[in-house]
């Protein structure tokens, strides 16, 4: 019994040390980013670790005064919002059609066909797509949006088909007998039952669209005025190579919308992702 207690204390202190170490490793860079964003370049080069001598908002002011920055924010917002809207309208509906017709050959084929995407690395699609899009005159935000919608299909359909499968079909059958069409059944009934999965999808995909680097780099890097925020952050390195307090300020401001979403949906994020993971 005493041994037991001793063992417990041992494992618990090991666990707490591990968690503490991890938290320091996560928070330490973020604290450095915040403190240095309030410094002038001169102050930051003198001491990277010290707290700022005063709360200096010049970096923020300069950033917010640059017109281009708002253009990049706007581009990111537009791409993220339009893609997300389309995906939320589109993926659950397609999955509904597949999940409720699995006994038919076409829908079984379609499901497997879309799942093939799991085995396809992005590189093999991206190279031909850049050429394809340039021929179609689509190396722009709209092209990017179309690609996000398509590339969201595999994971989205996977999550939703499995989720809808687990829902009882009786209510839908009753609605059908009452004369509801497919779309009426979907918009009046199914859409309410799949809410938890919709929030999981929104969180995962918003984070992806907002933060994605590879797709915009392949598609938009040559045209400055179409850059999204990650492209701006990437090119920042070369353009303002030494003004890292400025760069840190830019990262922090880009993080704000995500932080707001995070604070409001934190419960959904961890629980929702957990639910999604169990289903898969």
């Amino acid at each position, binding site marked *: 019994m005493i041994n037991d207690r001793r063992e417990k204390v041992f494992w618990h202190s090991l666990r707490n040390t591990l968690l503490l170490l991890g938290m320091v490793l996560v928070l330490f860079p973020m604290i450095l980013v915040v403190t240095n964003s309030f410094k002038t370049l001169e102050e930051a080069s003198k001491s990277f670790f010290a707290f700022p001598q005063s709360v200096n908002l010049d970096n923020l002011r300069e950033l917010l005064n640059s017109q281009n920055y708002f253009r990049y924010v706007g581009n990111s917002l537009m791409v993220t919002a339009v893609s997300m809207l389309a995906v939320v309208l589109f993926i659950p509906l397609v999955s509904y059609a597949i999940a409720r017709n699995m006994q038919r050959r076409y829908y079984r084929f379609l499901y497997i066909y879309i799942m093939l995407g799991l085995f396809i690395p992005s590189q093999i699609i991206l190279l031909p797509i850049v050429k394809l899009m340039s021929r179609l005159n689509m190396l722009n935000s709209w092209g990017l949006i179309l690609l996000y919608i398509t590339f969201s299909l595999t994971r989205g359909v996977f999550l939703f088909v499995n989720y809808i499968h687990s829902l009882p079909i009786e209510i839908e059958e009753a609605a059908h007998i009452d*004369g509801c069409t497919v779309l009426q059944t979907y918009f009046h009934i199914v859409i309410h039952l799949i809410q938890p999965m919709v929030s999981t999808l929104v969180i995962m995909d918003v*984070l992806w669209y907002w933060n994605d680097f590879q797709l915009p780099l392949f598609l938009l890097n040559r045209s400055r005025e179409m850059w999204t925020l990650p492209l701006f952050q990437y090119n920042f390195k070369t353009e303002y190579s030494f003004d890292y307090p400025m760069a840190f300020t830019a990262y922090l401001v880009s993080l704000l919308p995500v932080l707001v979403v995070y604070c409001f949906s934190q419960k959904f994020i961890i629980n929702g992702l957990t639910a999604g993971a169990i289903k898969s």
Partner: protein
Amino acid sequence: MRNKELNRDRVSFFLITLPALVLYSFFYIYSVALGFYYSMTNWDGLSKAFDFVGFSNYGKLLTNKAFFSSVSITFRYAALMVLCTIIISVLLAVSLNSIRTFKTFIKSVFFFPAMISSVAVALIWDQIFIRALPSLASALGVQTISSPLGDKTNALYAVLFVNLWQSLALPTVIFIAGIQSIPDELYESSVIDGASMFQQFRYVTLPYLVPTISINTILTLKAGITSFDYAKALTNGGPARSTMLIGIKIYTDAFGDTPKFNIANTESVILFLIIAVLSLVQLSISSRSGVNKA
């Protein structure tokens, strides 16, 4: 009447799937086919005319040292990434799941890195490597340490570290879900049998996590083999090509100063085949082990 309704429903179901079918076929399947096709041409990506050359690009790559070194760097990177991800995120998940105080806060801290863009993460760590390491060294009174990114023996590990800093969050969440799905009775009866905490982990938790481990292994393996963002933003393949992951090499070959679009496509076809084979092997191994089948 009944038949008419059934037909109407069938048509609407079919129409619903049509946009997905078209988009997916065009951007996924057609692009992959196009990639195969380009890999059998001599197109550099810019010239107007090009010829079909069969499998000769594949022959060229099989004797290309730079390509093999990229493949071996990528495998080392992906293997280390899988190993670190599985070990650390299992430990984190078990730890996070067992705490009682500040649970939500601490979980959120660990999930936080997943919210930031990979480019910002890479460039923040780049600055920390450049600015913080030297002052840390001088504060500790040891020899000056320079950024590991500038040194060809350490650069790959530094890139991997930054990659892991961000990418551990998701597997950890998936492991937490896996742990929560283990029936409580098993822990209760193991306590009655006098199992120690370590024995509980070894004989209850771990066997039940096998399916979750294989999901995370597949996801991480694919992420590791196709890794791009961190190396692109941190080192762009340098120094001395020591971080030339296959993803970076494909990009450089396709859009670099001397474009070799056909070669880049050949490399991505090979990458595709590697991933397909590895996923199938992994799937067949994991379907033979684990509690669900035992």
